[in-house]
């Protein structure tokens, strides 16, 4: 079973040289720490920066330089700043090759719910709806089940949707899955995790080929 950092590490293996990438808050943020050798990517934060660098050293924070999670950041050489309309022009116009974000639920048709729980305080969708509606390549990073042990990979989402038929791939603590027209296709299982465990933790339709390989982590 993977921990959160290992989920990020596994997703980092999906990165391709030359990609622009938008990382959501939570697990996706950790991906920046695991970029494979020889792979060069540039991070976009939707509040207005391309070429986002690491957090600043203590005492070097700049109130005018933050990421979409409102954390202080730095800019790498070759970075550029832009306004919010231009930022979402990049996103909506499919100039960002990969979006990674967390989710509360994913359905086996690619629907995603990650912004609202009815009867609870709603904070808003931020940029998530724009991101999922436009990204050509969306990976969801999440735990396979919720705190009550219920599957987050469903036949149909029960929570209000963020986007429809948009998720392409899911990396959880248990597995790597691809969304196909017939449901979740199990691509890889986490080290030491059996296909049966994944089956039991997945409520949506699950396609299992012979010999599902173990992740290389």
């Amino acid at each position, binding site marked *: 079973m993977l921990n959160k950092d290992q989920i990020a590490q596994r997703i980092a293996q999906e990165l391709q040289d030359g990609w622009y990438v938008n990382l959501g808050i939570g697990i996706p943020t950790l991906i920046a720490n695991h970029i494979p050798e020889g792979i060069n990517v540039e991070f976009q934060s939707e509040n207005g920066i391309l070429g986002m660098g690491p957090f600043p050293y203590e005492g070097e924070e700049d109130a005018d330089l933050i990421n979409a999670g409102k954390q202080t950041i730095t800019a790498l050489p070759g970075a550029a700043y832009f306004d919010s309309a231009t930022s979402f022009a990049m996103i909506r116009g499919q100039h960002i090759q990969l979006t990674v974000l967390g989710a509360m639920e994913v359905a086996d048709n690619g629907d995603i719910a990650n912004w609202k729980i009815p009867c609870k305080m709603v904070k808003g*969708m931020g940029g998530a709806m724009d991101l999922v509606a436009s990204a050509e390549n969306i990976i969801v990073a999440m735990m396979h089940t919720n705190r009550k042990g219920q599957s987050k990979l469903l036949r149909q989402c029960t929570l209000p949707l963020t986007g429809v038929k948009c998720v392409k791939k899911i990396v959880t603590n248990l597995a790597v899955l691809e969304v196909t027209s017939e449901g979740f296709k199990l691509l890889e299982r986490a080290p030491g995790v059996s296909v049966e465990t994944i089956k039991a933790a997945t409520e949506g339709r699950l396609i299992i080929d012979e010999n599902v390989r173990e992740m290389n982590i």
Partner: protein
Amino acid sequence: MALNKVVENVQAALEGVENNMTFMLGGFGLCGIPENAIKELVRRGITGLTCISNNAGVDDFGLGLLLQGKQIKKMISSYVGENKEFERQMLSGELEVDLVPQGSLAERCRAAGAGIPAFYTPAGYGTEVAEGKEVRIFDGKPHILEMAFQADFAFVKAWKGDTAGNLIFKATAKNFNPMMAMAGKITVAEVEELVPAGALDPNQIHTTGVFVQRIFQGTDYEKRIERITTRPKV
């Protein structure tokens, strides 16, 4: 000679604001918010406001200050609730909240400034954001029709500005400020540094003075950081 948009201070800049008006306020979180204008709105105590702003500040800073005084009737934002008073007012029904996808929020501001009454976007299709909105398929993909906003005043904050109203923003403090500057019936710009017309390179202007009706030298900027995050020096 360049036009002169300078007003003496924040009081003069907010001349004409009234109860029940709709305002746009630049900023992302607490970054790039019009601190001076917000303080003056608090001081004036006008109420029934509709505020279009990506976020709603924190309890004791930014738009949170207007919430404390129950001056806001309705928030139009993409992400809110970083403060308890907001949550209380929203759950009690005192505060109306319209949540808009961030990219649609930005584009609806730009559209307002650009004379585009409406446009199609895929964001929000199939979600509750699309409820009551026209759906149309383009190139096989469903989109929803989103309308331009309208605002009586837009309050923006820039790094540098000149007397002609030309603005330059710094780093990610740019965010929603340029589009909102385009969209206000009256746009009020406060700047950290006000310089004479001609002092800024015309190639480097982010927002041209044509969009700005009033500009003033801001004072006492706190520029609070919401989440200071650092790494250790190696």
